[in-house]
């Protein structure tokens, strides 16, 4: 099946925030933001902007009726800056005008003076100066310090990991419409409708029931609209509240790039101890997370880094410390993988370097240390139903690793400056929000009298196909044609207290809730069916393809007739149901517990080709064995894997965020920040579905899919490094992602001697 929206998409009929027909009199907002990365606001004069023809209001923090606070985990973020600004792009004022163009022109008339304060953009510098978001957190098992001496090889190094711009194609935006009785309806492009509702209520000093948030679909999000869609939605609500008119705000691309946070850059130190057979005995890592100016979701993201510090490997002695460092960049935020990719990149770097030193293949170390059932994660969780080894071994055999290696050797020996390299990447990714309380969802299912079905859940459709998966599981539960099932917008009046659609959990949590709601109705239908057919045992009633069977024999009842007759006999055809993931807990006092319902496994093999003359590279092939569980929808799941891999490759290759030392983003447009295009994707991509994998926590035995494939992209980095090594020994090369063509070339060749460098 396809994403529910596909037919609308291909006809250009799908609506996004910027496409909605506006109520008459809708006003438009623009955000006036800080031009410096750190300073005190000495003077702010908006009078000239107010005088601008067509401007209706200019709002600052003083105009907020409630609390000027939008922080989610930690209350450290204002909606509009008060007396200090902490990053370039921090919102200070909101201009509301008849058109967006007028609002933006008027923005130029606002006068502001700052007293500039020192700017920090490097997380290690922030750490040294004590600028932390929260106290450092350590996860540990065993005692690394006792083991180093027993290791045949102990290696230490430093790793730099760049951030990543989400580049959801639809920029941030929202429309707020005042409703009768002083309420507010907000149409928002958000992954977290409840966050928008809660924060709007706080800012406006209203009870949450006065705020209705409605979400149709998102034009991409990838985590970038989990916490960071809130501010813009709440700004429209504030303006609409103040002016009593609908207000729309859609960020322009350059505003979105400037004002919103990205994937966290990390700087990390690692120490790894191995024996000559390649067994990892001890691993220690310290992560300096570049959080940006305020907490946002940084502490939760850092925690997931710590959960994935050893990726797919069992290591008996582990010490992983995470430090969230406050810098003067826009608040970095959730992005597919949520800190996991950074954790995995560091351990893979350590293994890569250790293998080089031991002169054994990297995959030997990877293979020898893969987790298996009976092992325990260093954070206390018992490993069950592990498919790490199966995925790895199948990848090696199905894709004929040794033959591929032979071909690469032949190619390299017959080419002077074009070289190929290969790398493997096993992935083990934990599924569940690591903040256990978020692992809950509810669903509202209505069966209408014509047999059509309406489903509301907390899930947000942002391209990942969650609506289609929910349609599938509801249709399967009733055994009716999927075309009878419609998934509604996500709306806080229908589904309250929603968790964000994030952590790959949308289909699991909401799908399970929808199944429960459907089963509730199904039971009532069956109970009534026996009356209609003059039988007694509802348990013997079964619906198969819209026909009603009793004790395995067909009856005269159809789905539509049964629905109508059940209604006619005054039996409810609606159900609101609730699901909370069982068996999970985590004690943050001791950092031990069982935080994940299950893990997703897989292994990728990536081959790349580097033009060592020019420093350019291509990804030749990506071959993957992935553990989907029993996929609810293979087409959607395949799309998630392919898209995730390409995004992961982008993160570690061409996607380079560049800031100057004043904290200004230089890669601030699509002409300077490059994401993969159709030419830069792997020439060949094969995804094998691991067979015989079941998962009782996912609807119909499925597994979550959104994030895990992203991390296969890590193999692209190491395949390029390995190809470079075929041209010139590059051991000792700085570990620094992304591996841009610039870094490739500078690491392959001696710098050019010039008069200026000679001096």
């Amino acid at each position: 099946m396809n994403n529910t929206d596909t037919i609308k998409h291909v006809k250009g009929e799908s609506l996004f925030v910027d496409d909605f027909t506006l109520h008459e009199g809708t006003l438009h907002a623009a955000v006036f933001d800080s031009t410096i990365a750190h300073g005190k606001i000495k003077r702010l004069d908006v009078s000239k902007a107010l005088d601008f023809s067509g401007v209706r209001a200019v709002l600052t923090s003083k105009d907020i009726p409630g609390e000027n606070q939008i922080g989610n985990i930690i209350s450290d973020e204002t909606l509009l800056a008060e007396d200090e600004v902490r990053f370039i792009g921090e919102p200070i004022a909101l201009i509301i005008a008849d058109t967006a163009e007028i609002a933006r022109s008027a923005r130029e008339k606002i006068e502001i003076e700052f007293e500039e304060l020192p700017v920090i953009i490097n997380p290690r510098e922030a750490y040294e100066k004590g600028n932390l978001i929260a106290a450092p957190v350590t996860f540990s098992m065993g005692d690394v310090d006792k083991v180093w001496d027993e290791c045949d090889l102990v290696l230490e190094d430093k790793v730099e990991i760049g951030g990543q711009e989400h580049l959801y194609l639809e920029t941030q935006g929202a429309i707020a419409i005042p409703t009768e009785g002083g309420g507010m309806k907000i149409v928002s492009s958000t992954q977290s409708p409840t966050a928008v509702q809660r924060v709007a209520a706080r800012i406006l000093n209203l009870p949450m029931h006065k705020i209705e948030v409605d979400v149709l679909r998102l034009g991409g999000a990838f985590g970038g609209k989990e916490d960071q869609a809130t501010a813009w939605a709440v700004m429209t609500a504030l303006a609409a509240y103040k002016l009593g008119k609908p207000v729309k705000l859609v960020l322009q691309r350059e505003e979105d790039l400037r004002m919103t946070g990205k994937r966290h850059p990390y700087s990390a130190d690692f120490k790894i101890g191995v024996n000559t057979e390649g067994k990892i005995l001890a691993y220690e890592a310290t992560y300096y997370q570049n959080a940006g100016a305020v907490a946002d979701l940084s502490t939760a993201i850092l925690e997931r880094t710590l959960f994935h510090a050893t990726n797919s490997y069992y290591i008996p002695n582990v010490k992983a410390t995470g430090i969230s460092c406050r810098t003067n960049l826009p608040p970095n935020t959730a992005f597919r993988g949520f800190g996991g990719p950074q954790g995995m990149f560091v351990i893979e770097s350590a293994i890569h370097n250790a293998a080089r030193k031991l002169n054994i293949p990297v995959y030997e170390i990877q293979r020898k240390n893969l987790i298996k059932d009976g092992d325990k994660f260093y954070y206390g969780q018992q490993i069950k139903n592990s498919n790490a080894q199966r995925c790895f071994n199948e990848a090696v055999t199905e894709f004929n690793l040794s033959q591929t290696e032979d071909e690469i050797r032949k190619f390299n020996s017959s080419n002077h400056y074009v070289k190929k390299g290969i790398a493997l990447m096993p992935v083990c990714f934990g599924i569940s929000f690591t903040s256990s309380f978020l692992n809950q969802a509810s669903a509202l299912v209505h069966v209408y009298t014509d047999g059509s079905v309406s489903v509301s859940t907390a899930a947000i459709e942002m391209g990942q196909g969650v609506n289609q998966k929910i349609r599938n599981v509801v249709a399967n539960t009733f055994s009716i044609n999927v075309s009878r099932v419609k998934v509604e917008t996500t709306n806080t009046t229908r589904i309250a207290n929603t968790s964000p659609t994030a952590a790959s959990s949308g289909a699991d949590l909401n799908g399970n809730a929808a199944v429960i709601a459907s089963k509730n109705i199904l039971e009532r239908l069956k109970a009534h069916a026996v009356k209609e057919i003059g039988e007694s045992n509802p348990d013997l009633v079964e619906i198969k393809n819209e026909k009603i069977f009793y004790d395995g024999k067909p009856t005269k009842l159809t789905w539509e007739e049964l629905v109508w007759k059940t209604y006619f006999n005054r039996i409810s055809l609606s159900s609101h149901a609730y699901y909370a993931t069982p068996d999970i807990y985590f004690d943050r006092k001791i950092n031990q517990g069982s935080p994940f319902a299950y893990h997703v496994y897989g292994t990728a093999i990536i081959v790349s080709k580097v033009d060592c003359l020019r420093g350019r590279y291509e990804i030749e092939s990506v071959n993957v064995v992935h553990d989907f569980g029993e996929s609810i929808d293979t087409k959607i799941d395949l799309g998630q894997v392919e898209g995730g891999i390409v995004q992961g490759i982008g993160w570690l290759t061409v996607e380079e965020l560049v800031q100057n030392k004043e904290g200004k983003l230089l890669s601030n447009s699509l002409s300077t920040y490059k994401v993969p295009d159709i030419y830069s994707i792997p020439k060949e991509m094969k995804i094998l579905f691991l067979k015989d994998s079941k998962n009782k926590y996912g609807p119909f035995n499925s597994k979550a899919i959104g994030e895990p494939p992203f991390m296969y992209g890590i193999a692209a980095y190491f395949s390029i490094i390995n190809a470079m090594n075929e041209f010139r020994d590059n051991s000792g090369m700085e570990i620094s992602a992304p591996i841009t063509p610039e870094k490739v070339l500078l690491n392959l060749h001696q710098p050019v001697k010039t008069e200026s460098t000679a001096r």
Partner: protein
Amino acid sequence: MQEKLHFVLNNEEISGEFNVSSTLLSFIRETKKLTGTKLVCREGDCGACTVLVGELNNGEVKYKTVTSCIYPLAKVNGKHIVTIEGINGVELTPVQNEFVNEGATQCGFCTPGFIMSLTWYLITHTNYTIEEAINALGGNICRCTGYASIIRSAENVIKSLKDGNSNGGETLRKLIKLNVLPEYFTDIKIRLQQINEKIAAETDSKPYQILVGGGTDLYVQRFDKVVKSNIGLTEHLSKAYIREDGNLIKISGNMTFEQFKESGIIKKYFPRLQQQLNLVASLPIRNSATISGNIVNASPIGDLTIILLALDASLILSDGKNERKVKLKDFYKGYKLLDKSEDEIITEIFFSLDFGNHNLNFEKVSKRTYLDIASVNSTMFIAHSEGKINLCRISAGGVAPVPLLLKNTSEFLSGKEIGNAVIEEALEIVQSEISPISDVRGSEEYKRLLLNQLIKAHFIELFPQSVNIAELV
């Protein structure tokens, strides 16, 4: 600037006074409320706003793709504009159908742009290949799918149309029968002819403040100013041409990159450029961007300028009354400073090819290989006989405040025998001629190294037998 326009938007004839300095996209989305065409980057870098522009050419309607977010509305006069709404019918088109079959949409924001680009390919080509189809999609960015399902869709649609239409040759009638295009396309030619007669009858050229070629730089760099100014169009100045005149090649300033790339003369004399020019911008941008625009934009890294520098091109500048000639290499006086008065425009670019046996090679390295601005680019034009260089000109972009002709290096190489030692010696001269700075496209150190490597690449590409590649790289 309000001006009269007559054109066809999808199946609707539009006539009236409009702000012609504004963009086609804002007309489509804001005036006509056709929201299938999306705004994403407003710099032609993503293709979400791709539409088709059809114009009469020798009695036929020729379509091309443009990025409507930076396409001046003035340019639609007398043309047929097709948005996603304009190809929608009761049934899905084969392109739409295969996107559905392969699940080639996720969030859907980029999808209409992809559909338009692939549809364009189908209606303008005959013997379909997947490589060409991918080239047609080179300007479209998708952040969700990783393109694999999109490529599968393109493969399927090509195959299905080949099967359904084994004769090849996509006449309009066949395309309509195959449901690639809706029925109303049949009448577009006649409607455009009628419209253009109307336009010809009422033409009155108004004074302008800004002259726009393709608009692909102006609308990116000075959007707010241009949309509020009176604009003129270089396409109104003359019909675009490229022609041989004795031993000179003459090119009109308003020629687009794509016209240049696809011209018989360029294919004949510089066969390597066919492939290499794919590295320049993307097809929708090449369809709009003009050569004179590239030159006057004065970006130190302009790809076409770098090629023309190595050809030692000259410019004809005209202020409407007087004409004068200036060498391209003397045209740049400093960063974005030109030997050109406000009133002057480049009407023609010409260069000589009277050098016997010659070769030209263009090299470009950018962060992303396609649709990216170079970190460093370079062209080498070389005339040679029996391994001896008779004349050599090497240009380089991204290594100085202006697009640079490496005069000393070029002079040094002329008269030499091709070989590693000569190249190595030349590279030392190169380094004394350039002054790159560190910026978002790379550090100074990188750009210095990269230019050396690209010059080595020129020789390796053109004279693999005359150099010791293993040692040179």
